[in-house]
């Protein structure tokens, strides 16, 4: 069977190596359009858009320009506006490049492009930082006829260190950070922080015990996301707990992964857990192994693994996509007890249907704090709860304020609410 894997590997490498040659041959082949005579220029039939102005796009990294114009007098006859750009106002016709389209009736267009080159060639619609870029606009009708050009307008794109539209995000992050630090300090100071029991997590020890009694391995799948996804990071914490228990019980653990960085992270996590359990001698680096970066081959291999190794317990913790049901169903058929957790809304239903316990969304993040009871992990969870209360309050108060058109300078607002409630009663 190893031979098939190696054969396949060489086949894949060969296919990719010859792909550029095939592509080069195809691009060098003359296309039918090349042999035709140049098309006649489109008829200029409509009046141009006017008063074109350009300015730097605010709150960006310096590669965006915002255009405004007044509609063509024949706007109703047009299909769209073409936006063209060049490096100078006096550039020859061939140096102008089509940057984008705006539907008829549009008076504004935002052009952003930060790729200076495309496939090694200069990108004609790149917006350089600190250098003027010139734009002009014309209308186009569905029969291919066009309007005259607008005047040329130019602007210089400049980068901004601070996104003024994200002040709310900054305040929220600072609020969360402050609350997190407060709760961490409180927990370290001896304050007892309560976390409600999470059934899926309470079942972890039971599931590991079952595998130990049956003498079969435990399978831990970290999903098909990347090593840096928040759900994957939460998955490492649960993996750490599971690995510590498997080290204590001397149960075999299998962690197939689909990303090299994730493999490194998982190996570190499992290795540390075995050390913490006082059994570094039992740790086998090959228990965490790479299969394939592609989703469905990975699933095919993991499904086969479940059947062949007859895993007693399967954990699915991380980011999952279309493979969730395929994995959970195969695990169910093989008779494994299964615990899943993901923050992918579209996949939670499949886990709920096919696994024994499911950590829904944020329960997965809470799992790490619940399992460890460490102040550093409890703090953020408590802070998130606080943020949730604030969100609920904003939600309810916001709806009330909008419903009764309340404003800060409207003292009669409360009276209006009372009147509406009395009227309704």
């Amino acid at each position, binding site marked *: *069977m190893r031979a*098939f*894997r190696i*054969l*396949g*590997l*060489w*086949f*894949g*490498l*060969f296919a*990719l190596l010859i792909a550029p040659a095939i592509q080069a041959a195809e691009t060098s082949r003359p296309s039918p359009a090349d042999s035709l005579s140049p098309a006649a220029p489109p008829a200029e039939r409509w009046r141009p858009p006017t008063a074109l102005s350009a300015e730097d796009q605010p709150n960006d990294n310096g590669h965006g320009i915002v255009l405004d114009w007044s509609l063509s007098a024949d706007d109703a006859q047009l299909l769209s506006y073409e936006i063209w750009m060049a490096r100078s106002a006096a550039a020859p016709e061939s140096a102008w490049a089509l940057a984008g389209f705006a539907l008829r009736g549009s008076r504004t267009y935002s052009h952003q492009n930060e790729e200076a080159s495309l496939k*090694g060639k200069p990108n004609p619609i790149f917006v350089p930082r600190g250098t003027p870029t010139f734009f002009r606009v014309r209308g186009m009708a569905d029969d291919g006829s066009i309007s005259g050009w607008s005047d040329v307008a130019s602007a210089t794109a400049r980068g901004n260190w601070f996104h003024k539209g*994200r002040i*709310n*995000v900054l305040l*929220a*992050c600072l609020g969360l950070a402050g609350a997190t630090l407060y709760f961490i300090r409180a927990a370290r100071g001896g304050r007892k*922080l*309560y*976390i*409600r029991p999470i059934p899926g997590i309470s079942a972890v020890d039971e599931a590991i015990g079952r595998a130990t009694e049956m003498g079969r391995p435990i399978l831990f799948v970290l999903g098909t996301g*990347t*090593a*840096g*996804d*928040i759900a994957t*990071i939460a998955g490492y914490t649960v993996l750490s707990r599971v690995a510590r228990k498997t080290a204590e019980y001397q149960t075999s653990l299998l962690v197939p992964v689909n990303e090299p*960085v994730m493999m*490194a992270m998982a*190996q*570190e996590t499992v290795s540390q857990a075995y050390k913490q359990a006082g059994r570094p001698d039992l740790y086998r680096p090959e228990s965490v192994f790479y299969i*394939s*970066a592609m989703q469905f*081959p990975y699933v*095919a*291999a993991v*499904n*086969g693994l479940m*059947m062949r190794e007859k895993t007693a317990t399967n954990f699915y913790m991380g980011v999952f996509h279309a493979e969730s049901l395929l994995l959970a169903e195969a695990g169910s058929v093989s008779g494994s007890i299964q615990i899943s957790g993901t923050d992918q809304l*579209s996949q*939670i*239903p*499949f886990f*709920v*249907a096919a696994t024994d316990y499911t950590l*829904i969304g*944020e329960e997965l993040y*809470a799992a790490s704090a*619940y399992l460890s009871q460490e102040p550093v992990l409890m703090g953020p969870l408590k802070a998130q*709860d606080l943020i*949730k209360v604030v*969100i*609920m309050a*904003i939600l309810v108060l*916001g*709806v009330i304020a*909008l*419903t009764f*058109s309340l404003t800060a300078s409207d003292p009669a607002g409360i009276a209006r609410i009372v009147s509406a409630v009395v009227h309704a009663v």
Partner: protein
Amino acid sequence: MEPTWGALAWQGLAAIVTLGIFSFLAGDNPFYKIIERTWVGVTTGYWLMLLYHTSFHDKVWVNIVVQHKWWYILPTFLGLLMWLRLSRKLAWISRYALAFYIGISTGIYIPLAFKNFVFLQLEGAVRPISFDAAGINFVIALVGLTCSLSYFFFSKPHTGILGGMSKAGILTLMIGFGAGFGLTVMGRVALLVQRVIFLRDYSVNLFGKIF
């Protein structure tokens, strides 16, 4: 148009692979094992070359050697540190690269999560209640949303009012999950139908060519 033998051969390969994967429904078997291993091998080879082109060539070679963007040396250096995992003595140095990767991912994700999953959602949810059928719908959605949020409140036991809200919340979530389940299953059935149609068309073409 009648298919050529060459096209039929390629389609035949696809049909064999399809049947090989479907054979898993009858349990693990040698046919499935062959297809599975071949598939994993092919995709690993493909991915390796893809990474070479999209990561090494486009992000390292082009940026540093061609465009002289020297600051790209820093992430390249961090990437090279990962290779130290192959050495038993120096493997610990790779943790710096891992720590940087995880830290930067989290730092990018949290503000994005606030923007996409908190502020934009709030913006959509905070609306005036109109006193008509749409208003009733909105109130139901608002109550469902508030109760669902309360289900994810971990700091208090789910008893009393919070317990009731939490139950209503999980009920709301399950209704949503049920709808999502049905929708996705429909999509999956469509994919199955597509594969079955492919197998049918292939067998029709093959028998048509032979006989």
